[in-house]
């Protein structure tokens, strides 16, 4: 009795705190179409300047896989006004650090510096938005670098190779089937023409979101953005962002990757799943909670059953990321305990999912998960750059500022029935891929 009472008190107090103090977020749009989001945190005189382009690996032309990421590397070479490597050198000389990343739906570049250097960062970032000037030598040398990157991050890692095969099987017609780093045989042929064409087609102010976080005042950031980014004309020939979509999935698919470097075999299961859409996020919120209910923490359903009760699993987890422009996937992984075969592990996973669909969500567990969500909003205020990344990711995957701000309340309003309904809709064999990662000797035995 007492424990329940304390929990109730905690919920009440948390709810009031979370709504009383929010991190201030301001949104502007420049005349040339550049969107600007400012996230304020005045605890330290530091700023993070990020530009997010609404283009990623899933926007690549056929046969040029990896070009979005390749271009991201080459953006650190010269422009008409700066020599190769000067960008990062100037950031470092100002005590800052910079980097960039590419995903399916976006390409982002960021610098973290003392707050009074924001103008300089904007000047350089605006410059390379339209003035990139590459040499043949830049392109050939950097192509070797990305091939080594693929060797290091993917080819040297059987788990990464397995993930690549799972994705390629999950998506039958969409660009999400192609790895962001690219297929090696296509990466080897990428050239100056591929890169500059991609750059000219997609990089411009009306295809970008600028996210500035830290010790800044929104109006001052707007003035700086107008000064540096404002003069860049909008791209009038920006193509509409349409992609080939998935047909109905009618048949379960299976694959086995046997690699001698695998010591710990496991089973991975993916289901085609809806993503978060602007003004329509309830189902995605239910799926996010479903991932927590099934495989989030130590007390989640699959962990409780398979790691603690039956001890068939060494580890088990569930994954869902709704921030995706097009359909995404819901994932489950089970690492079998010693002496449990992959076949038995897969059967155990299916058995527990079936039981869950019968019994539904434990209300106490759902309360705990929602409480943790509210608390995470408090902890998140300690990482303002994390909040900034969330806005950048949302606004390049089809969501608006209002969708990000509505999300916490939507999550809190989801019922156990909605979670089970979403589970019944998504966890269907017909839309699934089941993969076994194993080693050749284990496969034979």
């Amino acid at each position: 009795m007492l424990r329940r009472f304390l929990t109730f008190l905690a919920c009440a107090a948390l709810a009031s705190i979370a709504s009383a103090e929010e991190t201030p977020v301001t949104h502007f749009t420049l005349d040339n179409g550049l969107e600007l989001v400012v996230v304020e945190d005045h605890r330290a005189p530091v700023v993070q300047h990020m530009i997010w382009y609404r283009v990623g690996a899933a926007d690549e032309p056929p046969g040029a896989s990896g070009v979005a990421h390749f271009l991201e590397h080459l953006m650190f070479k010269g422009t008409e006004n700066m020599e190769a490597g000067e960008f990062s050198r100037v950031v470092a000389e100002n005590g800052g650090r910079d980097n960039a990343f590419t995903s399916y739906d976006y390409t982002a570049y960021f610098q973290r510096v003392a707050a009074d250097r924001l103008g300089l960062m904007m000047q350089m970032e605006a410059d390379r938005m339209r003035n990139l000037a590459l040499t043949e030598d830049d392109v050939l040398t950097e192509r070797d670098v990305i091939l080594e990157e693929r060797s290091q991050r993917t080819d040297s890692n059987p788990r990464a190779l397995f993930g690549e095969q799972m994705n390629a099987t999950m998506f039958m017609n969409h660009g999400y089937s192609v790895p962001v780093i690219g297929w090696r045989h296509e990466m080897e042929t990428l050239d100056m023409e591929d890169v500059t064409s991609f750059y000219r087609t997609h990089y411009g102010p009306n295809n970008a979101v600028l996210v500035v976080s830290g010790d800044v005042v929104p109006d001052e950031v707007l003035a700086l953005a107008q000064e540096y980014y404002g003069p860049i004309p909008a791209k009038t020939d920006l193509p509409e962002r349409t992609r080939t979509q998935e047909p109905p999935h009618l048949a379960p698919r299976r694959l086995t990757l046997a690699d001698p470097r695998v010591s710990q075999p496991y089973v991975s299961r993916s289901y085609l799943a809806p993503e978060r859409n602007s003004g329509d996020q309830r189902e995605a919120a239910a799926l996010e909670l479903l991932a927590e209910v099934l495989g989030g923490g130590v007390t989640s359903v699959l962990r409780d059953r398979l790691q603690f009760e039956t001890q068939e699993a060494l580890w088990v987890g569930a994954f869902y990321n709704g921030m995706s422009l097009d359909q995404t996937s819901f994932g489950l992984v089970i690492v079998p305990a010693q002496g449990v075969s992959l076949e038995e592990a897969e059967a155990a996973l299916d058995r527990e999912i079936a039981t869950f669909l019968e019994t539904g969500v434990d209300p106490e567990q759902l309360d705990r998960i929602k409480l943790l969500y509210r608390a995470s909003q408090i902890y998140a205020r300690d990482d303002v750059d994390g909040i900034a990344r969330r806005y950048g990711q949302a606004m390049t995957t089809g969501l608006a500022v209002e969708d990000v701000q509505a999300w916490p309340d939507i999550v809190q309003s989801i019922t156990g029935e909605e979670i089970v309904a979403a589970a019944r809709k998504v966890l269907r064999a017909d839309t699934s891929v089941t993969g076994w990662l194993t080693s050749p000797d284990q496969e034979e035995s």
Partner: protein
Amino acid sequence: MLRRFVAAIALIWSSASLALAEVEIQEITTPGGITAWLVEDHSIPFTALELVFRGGTSLDQPGKRGATNLMMGLLEEGAGDRDARAYARRLEELAASISYDASDDELSISAQFLTENRDEVLPLLADTIHRPRFDQDALDRVRAQVISGLQSDQNDPNELASAALSLGAHGDHPYGSDGSGTVDSVSALTRDDIIAAHQGGLAMDRLYVGAVGDITPEDLAVLLDTLLADLPETGALMPDDAPVNISGGVTVVDFDTPQSVALFGHEGIMRDDPDFFAAFILNHIMGGGGFSSRLMQEVREKRGLTYGINTFLVPKDHAALYLGSVATGNDRMAETVEVVRGIWTDLAENGVTQEELNAAKTYLTGAYPLRFDGNAPIARIMVGMQVTGLPVDYIATRNDKINAVTLDEVNAVARRLLQPEKLHFYIAGRPEGLETTN
């Protein structure tokens, strides 16, 4: 898909004397005699608490390798009158997080809790420190997870190169082997071994405390005395200093993979050495500082031989190494080794330029405040300062120390630290044209 190879991040700070004015450290001593460093910041209603115990996995007794690591993994698997699941459920109900880590020289417990739940979290934290249950079923479950990880390490080129280096450099000393143990040693550990590791590892004579966030010095003192006063005064004896047996050459660990991984280096420099700051700057120029470093320029930017190459000073409590790492195709490792040796020799003989030194100082001083970006990172930095023996006002003086280093000092330390004839490459893979020397 980060563009950059993520290096072991260099230390750092900026033009911003203002930046660090924000980080005001109070040193407190509790009525119970515990010293702690505190940064009070009431803007967000939670506290990050960092407890570090010096000693780490190097305290493992002979034949019990992996006991300390497994013990730390078990602290969250049930304590007091709660078993593993009940304990986890209670932590969730309080929206608190506690994480545990074990390294060669340190054990750490990192907690974050909301102000409104502080009084309820405290007994949970006390249970995990003083009354872990070490239930046999939890022990067996976590042991299986550790063993699975160790088996995977045997097929990971990074781990293979690292194991070859540790064994070659330090032999029988605990630094010579993985703190997680071996499949055999971990399989043989008993509950008594875990209890012994707990008693030897967590003690008052090796404790360092940092706290940041929504808590007053008075409240922190009460919390710490309640939490820690019952710790034993002393723990296990610290290990002896470790030998560093690295002489020039190549060690190849055969592994079937298209891309080789190399760890390279030789003896390093201790943290309390008067030349440490000069060495720190030298390392930044050599391979510690992103794209502008000599190694990144020559190996990646000019030749496209790798996705990333970096170097790092490794000043541990009982030995110091100076190391670097790089991965490249088997057909290009020999060329990479040659380029690295050349740069090592060049810097040892000719030193760095004034321009490089100036750029390194601007970066290192400018980037320092960027590290203080959240309650938990600041708590960890403060504990690190205490463990290293730095004064409470160090943050304010640190950039002056960097700026005071002269070109002559950096080049003197380059001649002393860099020993091209002792540089050894530990390579996992099938590098063409390279084989194990002597």
